[in-house]
């Protein structure tokens, strides 16, 4: 009868000793500092997508019809440079939407797909080239339409089609903002990569 309490006590102590290490493990993962780079990444990508979308919509709806001397509409489809602008910014908007969703998902669940996130930087650099060239093309055509060119006999268009020129000019300015955001995005990625390099 006296040996029974001795046998009962050791099994009770063993499970108690096992529990504290299990409780200590989850606590370090709950205290995580906010990753400012990831938040800034998502915000910048969202801005790029929004400005690309606004540019495409404003350029597509810029149609103006003049009644005198005969009804002649001014649309963006009449100039190959503006068609290239709309196509390039649509591609940029599509890819920036994909990368925004990817980095948002990576913000919610950190460390899930780090390899795919590394490929987003390459997409950003390529998008910067495309958006910059589209901005330059649309900007130069708009400038020639605004000021005219007496040497080659190209007349001013914006005195006749005021609304069209305003829309095209606004679209070009917004795409310039998109390319600046893309530059900031690539710089942010470069800076966050360089912080991880051992000195």
């Amino acid at each position, binding site marked *: 009868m006296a040996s029974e309490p001795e046998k009962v006590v050791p099994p009770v102590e063993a499970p108690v000793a096992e529990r504290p290490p299990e409780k200590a493990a989850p606590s370090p993962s709950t205290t995580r500092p906010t990753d400012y780079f990831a938040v800034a990444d998502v915000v910048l990508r969202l801005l790029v997508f929004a400005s690309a979308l606004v540019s495409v919509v404003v350029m597509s709806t810029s149609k103006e019809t003049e009644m005198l001397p005969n009804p002649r509409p001014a649309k963006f489809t009449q100039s190959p440079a503006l068609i290239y602008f709309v196509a390039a910014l649509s591609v940029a908007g599509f890819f920036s939407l994909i990368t925004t969703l990817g980095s948002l998902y990576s913000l919610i669940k950190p460390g899930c797909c780090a390899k795919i996130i590394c490929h987003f930087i390459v997409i950003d650099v390529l998008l*910067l*080239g*495309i958006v910059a*060239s589209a901005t*330059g093309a649309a900007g130069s055509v708009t400038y*020639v339409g605004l000021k005219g060119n007496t040497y*080659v006999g*190209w007349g001013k268009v914006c005195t006749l089609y005021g609304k069209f020129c305003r829309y095209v000019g606004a679209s070009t300015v917004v795409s310039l903002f998109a390319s600046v955001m893309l530059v900031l995005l*690539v710089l942010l990625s470069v800076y966050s990569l360089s912080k991880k390099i051992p000195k």
Partner: protein
Amino acid sequence: METESYTNGGGVAKEIGIANKQTIRGNDFVLRFLAFVLTLVAAIVLGVSKQNELVPVQLVPTLPPINVPASAKWSHMSAFVYFVIVNAIACAYAVISLVLSLANKGKAKCLSLTIIFFDLIMMALLYSSVGAAAAVGLIGYKGNTHVRWNKVCDVFGKFCGQVAAAVVISLVGSILFLLLVLFAMLNLHKNRRH
């Protein structure tokens, strides 16, 4: 590249880092030199482009057309002026960054970051100048009947050929700047601590 094995992990990482810096530095030098040459050639080809022609102009329908001397120069079009200026700046920057990166050899981190930053800005400016010059050249080549802008290239053929050549050369130069940025980021990606 050495293949000795070090007992401590820090020594092995440093060896790999030095080997990577040497290979990426070699690529950088060749790319920067080629970009310097190409942007210089593009700026010069457009900068010396000038063509004088006699254009027949019909003032009054009854009289025969009068030959009026007309010239096509790059300075007549603001998009071409922007193109020449940006290519000249990119060419000067390529020389400066070539000298700086050779002197630096990957030692000072903030200088490498500054070079990457300016590479990126130069790439964006070059792409925009290529887009601008190509757009204006296309209008001159095909004309635009909707806004009554006439073709220029059937009269000034040699000038248009020089514009096209300069745009293509500058496009290759801007692709080289893009490769410079991509290689710099690949270098950073390889050297980072996991």
